[in-house]
């Protein structure tokens, strides 16, 4: 009852015209930042903190929060329309979202992403209202061994990814892992594969590689022949239809849960949330071949997961004063600069602020949904721009994106090489998804394994002594091995059903 009253007061404050306006501004900026590849929400918030000093603290934080969760709505747009992720959280969306756009279903992809994001966002916020503190107390126990188990689980989901050839998938996954080892090693600080080039010390930029593989690779493929028809446009409903909604219900539900759980855990990132959601959807699907060819589940799940993640991400910050991600650290900076110090006492000391912020997140997510659904028609119009012009716009976007990620032209070289590689690999039927996924998971897996071993002075038992880590690893083993077992069993069954060689021969003799 008390919580409800506090929330109600917060809602009234959040609905104050000034606060409403800044929520709207924040969401709009976030949306724009999301559309533009390269700059992430952390940078956007950092750049705007000085601006917030002229505002009342509450409006300032409402605006910054709007930027934070608004970026996820925007990130989808370039992923779907241009095959270039606008935000690292939308990397996975590229795989099926863009294929939907090519099949004239861009509207459905954007629509389901907006709806999923809304549901995920609201669920994340409700979770924040209901059980912030107890959840966080559990979540912070997640240490390096548990992270390692989570990454192994993530890698085991790889086996479910649809692709034309298993051996080629494995090869690409290994290449992704290898690229992930470039740079300063996570445990001893020794450079690997850097060849004395300081640009490589931080590793090869994930964003530049992904933009190159998908964005540039796609341009090269389309530009190869003159006047190639790239997008099918002009038919079908713009918004998701009933069938889409039916297919998406499950992925949205699971995406919400995955995003929420990872959002509470400090140190996880939204890319992992969206990837795990994608992996789970592929694993569950009966017809896996639809993935990578415009399966709406591949958009609905990850897009829900990343927004649920982002909203749940406020939980550790507000409940314990722990920022879970770089963007949250910036949120914390913004709050502190405005005189609100995040910590366990924030709920008690500034209840009106906290509840207004929470209420504004619900309002903001609603605003974003209202903003996005009508805008879809406008975005889809972009695809009617002749490809002879559109490709140049996309090219510019990719360049700005790769450059502004770390303001280095070296990233442009990486992007060009990745683009060329993608062009050649696609010709040779190598799947790109496994490479991208191991590039996300590999470095985290190594880092957390080696951190675990630093904790135990080199004793591997740390991985099995901790129940959560152990169950994660067991689950991974099951996920990995089960299809093989089932395959073997079905196989045996089929062989028995089938006439044997001798029977065949015998029949032939008759």
């Amino acid at each position, binding site marked *: 009852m008390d919580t409800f009253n506090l929330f109600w007061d917060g809602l009234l404050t959040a609905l104050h015209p000034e606060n409403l306006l800044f929520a709207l501004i924040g969401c709009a900026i976030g949306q724009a930042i999301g559309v533009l590849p390269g700059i992430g929400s952390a940078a956007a918030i950092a750049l705007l903190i000085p601006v917030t*000093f002229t505002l009342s603290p509450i409006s300032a934080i409402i605006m910054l929060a709007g930027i934070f969760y608004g970026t996820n709505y925007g990130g989808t747009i370039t992923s779907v329309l241009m095959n270039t992720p606008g935000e690292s959280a939308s990397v996975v969306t590229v795989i099926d979202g863009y294929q939907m756009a090519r099949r004239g279903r861009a509207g459905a992809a954007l629509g389901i992403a907006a709806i999923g994001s809304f549901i995920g966002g609201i669920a994340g916020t409700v979770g924040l209202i209901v059980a912030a503190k107890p959840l966080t107390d559990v979540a912070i126990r997640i240490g390096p061994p548990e992270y390692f188990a989570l990454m192994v689980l993530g890698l085991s989901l790889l086996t479910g990814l649809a692709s034309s050839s298993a051996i080629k998938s494995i090869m690409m996954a290994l290449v992704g892992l290898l690229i992930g080892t470039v740079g300063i090693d996570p445990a001893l600080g020794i450079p690997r594969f850097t060849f004395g080039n300081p640009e490589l010390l931080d590793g090869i930029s994930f964003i530049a590689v992904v933009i190159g593989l998908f964005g540039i690779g796609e341009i090269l493929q389309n530009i190869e022949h003159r006047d190639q028809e790239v997008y099918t446009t002009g038919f079908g409903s713009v918004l998701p239809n009933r069938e889409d909604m039916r297919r998406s219900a499950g992925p949205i539900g699971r995406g919400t849960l995955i995003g929420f759980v990872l959002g509470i855990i400090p140190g996880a990132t939204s890319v992992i949330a969206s990837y795990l959601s994608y992996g789970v959807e592929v694993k569950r699907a009966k017809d896996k071949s639809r993935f990578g060819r415009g399966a709406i589940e591949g958009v609905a799940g990850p897009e829900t997961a990343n927004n649920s993640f982002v909203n749940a991400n406020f939980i550790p910050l507000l409940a314990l004063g722990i920022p879970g991600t770089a963007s949250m650290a910036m949120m*914390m900076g913004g709050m502190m600069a405005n005189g609100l110090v995040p910590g366990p*006492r924030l709920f008690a000391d500034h209840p009106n602020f906290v509840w207004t912020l929470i209420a504004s997140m619900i309002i903001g997510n609603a605003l974003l949904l209202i903003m996005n659904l009508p805008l879809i028609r406008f975005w889809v119009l972009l695809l009617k721009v002749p490809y002879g012009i559109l490709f140049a716009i996309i090219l510019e976007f990719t360049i700005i994106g790769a450059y502004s990620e770390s303001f280095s032209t070296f990233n442009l070289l990486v992007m060009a090489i990745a683009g060329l590689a993608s062009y050649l690999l696609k010709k040779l039927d190598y799947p790109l998804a496994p490479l991208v996924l191991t590039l996300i998971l590999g470095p985290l897996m190594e880092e957390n394994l080696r951190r675990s071993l630093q904790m135990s002075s080199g004793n591997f038992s740390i991985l099995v002594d901790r129940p959560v880590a152990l169950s994660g690893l067991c689950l991974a083993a099951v996920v990995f091995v089960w299809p093989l077992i089932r395959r073997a069993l079905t196989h045996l069954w089929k062989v028995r059903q089938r006439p044997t060689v001798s029977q065949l021969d015998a029949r032939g003799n008759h």
Partner: protein
Amino acid sequence: MSLFQWRKLIAAATAVTAGLAVTGCSTTSGSAADASSYPAKGRTVTLIVPYDAGGAGDVGARLLAPYLSDELGAKITIENDPGAGSQIGVSKLARSKPDGYTLGFTHLPATITTYLDPERKADFTLSNLAPIGMYVIDPTAFAVKGDSKYNSLDDLIADAKAHPGKIRITDSGVLSDGHITVLELEKLTGAKFAIVHGDGGAANVTNILGGNTDVGNLNISGNTAELVNDGQIKLLAIFDSKPDPHFPGVKTGVEQGYNIIEASSRAISAPAGTPKTIINKVSSALERAMKDPKFVKKADAAGLRLTYMNPNDLLTYWKKMEKSVKPLIALAR
């Protein structure tokens, strides 16, 4: 049109562009650094932040920029050149033209360990940089969970000696200020810790609260005081020269008999060769900006621990830190 014709067109376009750029560059370089008229009217001073926008030190730099700009009388733009734990940005700073129009942040000990560590193959040392002034000094501290059995460094060291290699200490990366503190402590006492290289800051608080480390390195700015006042965590020691008023009852390392002073600090430097008068001009502008009550209020709210040092003091501080870090490099791995 044939491809050949297009090739000609591209060549022409490139030539024109190149021509324009060359004339542009030559006019810029024509206006040589004139120390007495620095900063020249209408010219912009670039302040390199060797970290991501929104990363370590970026917000602090952005807070300072308008005030420093007022005091200096020149427009200041912040340029983020992140990468390799500030190596990329500092290297760029060291290579810039020493005319006072390119300045940058050099965080210590990160800058020092970068050029002392042979693995990093840095193309600069202190001799390529001209320190201008100190901006922020953020002392290193050891933190434990609120209900930890340790109450002092003595408790910790005694336990570490009883269980060599079993007590986990999480720092914020190889050769970070926290790592260096632990190495110094090991050298001083002969104790052995299980050093976990973490992500620092918030991640370390998580590790402490979640029980995934016994001791965590923290810097005392940010919301550390909030967490300590709440009783979630307690500080065993702050490795500063004097006790900190925000943390009543927390003794320094020196007070507890461990002669270690360590901090993560942010200095502003110029490329070596920048005229002395320019260095002094910027430094005194920095000092004035850092005394502006409006700025002090904002910096305080943002949890920045402002400490100004003039070029000479900063150089002494820098060299002292260099001397203490040098023998630890070999022990780091």
